[in-house]
C-alpha cells in the first residue's frame, strides 16, 4: 500500500516536509515515494499527509494510478481545463 508521485510534480518539497515516515526523497526531476516505507499514513492520520498538502492536481496517485487530487479539486479550474 503506497502512493506514487507523477511527473506533474513541481518539486515544491511540501510533501517531503510533512511525511511522517520520511518516505519521500528528491530526484533530479521529481520527488519519489519509497513504496517500502510509505503506509499512506494509515496508522498516523485520517488522511495521507503528502496528498493533503500537495498543491498540484494529479501529482500524487494511489496504487491504481488514480489521482488523489483530481483535476479541479484544488484549484477549482476543472471546467476551464477540460473545456
Amino acid at each position, binding site marked *: 500500500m503506497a502512493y506514487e508521485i507523477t511527473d506533474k510534480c513541481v518539486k515544491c518539497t511540501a510533501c517531503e516536509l510533512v511525511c511522517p515516515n520520511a518516505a519521500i526523497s528528491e530526484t533530479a526531476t521529481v520527488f519519489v515515494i519509497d513504496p517500502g516505507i510509505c503506509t499512506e499514513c494509515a496508522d498516523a*492520520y485520517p488522511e495521507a499527509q503528502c496528498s*493533503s*498538502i500537495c498543491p498540484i492536481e494529479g501529482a500524487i496517485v494511489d496504487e491504481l494510478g488514480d489521482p488523489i487530487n483530481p483535476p479541479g479539486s484544488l484549484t477549482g479550474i476543472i471546467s476551464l481545463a477540460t473545456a
Partner: protein
Amino acid sequence: MKLPIVENSGSNSESGSCQPSRCGSGTAATPLPADIQERVANHPCFSEQAHHYFARMHVAVAPACNIQCNYCNRKYDCSNESRPGVVSEVLTPAQAVKKVKAVAAEIPQMSVLGIAGPGDPLANPERTFETFRRLSEETPDIKLCVSTNGLNLPASVDELCKHNIDHVTVTINCLDPQIGARIYPWIFWDHQRLRGVEAARILIEQQQKGLEMLVERGILVKVNTVLIPGINDQHIPELSRVIREKGAFLHNVMPIISDPSHGTYFGLTGQREPTAAQLQEVQESCAGDMKMMRHCRQCRADAVGLLGEDRGEEFTLEKIDTMEIDYPAAMEKRARVHEEILAGLEQDQNPTDTGVTDGRAVQMAVATKGQSLINQHFGHATEFLVYEASPEGVRLVGHRRVPRPYCEGGSSCGEDAEAIMSAIIEQLAGCEVLLCSKVGFEPWTALEAAGIQPDGEHALEPIEEAVKSVYQQMMTREPVELPATERQSA
C-alpha cells in the same frame, strides 16, 4: 542633496532594456514616527526615501506552501515574469548564503535580505531559519526580513526573534471568513487540508494572532493586502483600521495581478485588475493616521537590486562561482556607502510644501533610474513614478509599469512605435505632465496630443523640486479654482 555615485565593478552595464525606478521620499501626509523612521532608514521596502538609494534582494529558499491563494500559481523557471511567487531557481541555504554575500559585495547599496518564497517561508522552517542563522553570523550588517501568509506565524514568532529579524511582512487580505473563502481555496492545518469558510477563519485567526504577537515583541510589521476588485475592495478600509489599531506600522495595498497566461484561478476566471485610479482610491480611503506604502513593485521571490530593477540574472549560481570576492573588503565598502547615503538623506529634509495655497491637485509621471533624480530618457523607462502636487504638498502616489519601453535600443528601436506609445499613454492615465531627462520628437507629439505635457527641462534635478516648480508654474497660469468635488476626483 548630494549623493555619492557608486560604481559597480562594471557589472551594472547597460544590460538590455531593464531600467530601475524609484519613488518619492518625504511625504506630505503621515510621516512615520521618528523611532520607526530610524529603524527603517535604510530599508528600501519600508522607507519610501530609502528605496531611491538602497537595494534589496530575496533568496528563494522556501518552495513549499501551506495554503493556496486564487491569485497565485507558483510556476518556476519563468524569467520573464516579475511577480511574487515566481523564481528561476530554488536555492539551498548554503547556496543562498553564497549568493547574498556575492550580491552584497557587488552592489554595496544592498541593505536588506528577505525570504519571501516562492512558497511560504514559515512552511519551510528549517531552510528559512538555517539561512537566517548563517546570514546573521556571516553578514551581520545586512538586515533580515521575512514575508508570510501568517498561517504558521504564531508558532514561529519565538524562532523569528532568535534570528534578530526586526521586520516581518504579513499578507492579510481580509478579516471576514466569507470573503476569505473566495480568495483561499484551501489551507493545510493540523494535518488536514481544510477548505471554505472554516479554512479562511483559521487562517485569519492565525494572521491576527501573529500580528499581535510580533507587535508585542517589538518587531516591525508591514501588512500587504492584495486588492481584488469585487471581492475585498469594500472591506479594505476596515481591515486597514484594524491592523493599524493592532500596531502594524505600514499598510501596502497592492493590485491583484490576474493575467490569464499566468494560469491562476483568478486569471482564468476573468477576475479584473484594478485600474491605477481605483488602487489609489482604496489607498486614500485607508490612509488615516497610518503610513500607506506607495512604492511597492510586487517583486519576484528572487529579485535583486533597487526596487523596480531586477539584476537577478547577473547572479545565477553559475556566475557567482566565477566571481572572485574579497568579503571583508566588501563589507567595509558597504559600510562606507551606506553611511554616505544616510548622511545625504539626513540633509535631504526637503520641505514638500509647494507654496501654492489654492489650486487643484496635479499628477505627474516621472522617469528615473534612482538617486531621486529625473535622470532617465522617456524611451528607456520601463515604469514611471507618479507624484501628486497640491496645496498640501508633493507626494508619491504610485508607479505605472509600461508593457515595453518606447525604445528598447538596438534594431528594435522604432518598431511598433505607435502601439507601444498608445499602451504607455494608457498607463499614464490621469497624469498631466511627464518629467524625464529627454524625450524624442515623436513621443513628444503623441504625449501632447493625449493631454500629457512632456517636460525635459528638469533633467538631473531632484524629483520633488522639479514637480514643485512645474506645479507652481501651472498654478500661476491657471488661477481659476475648481469646485471641491472635482478636486477630489482629480
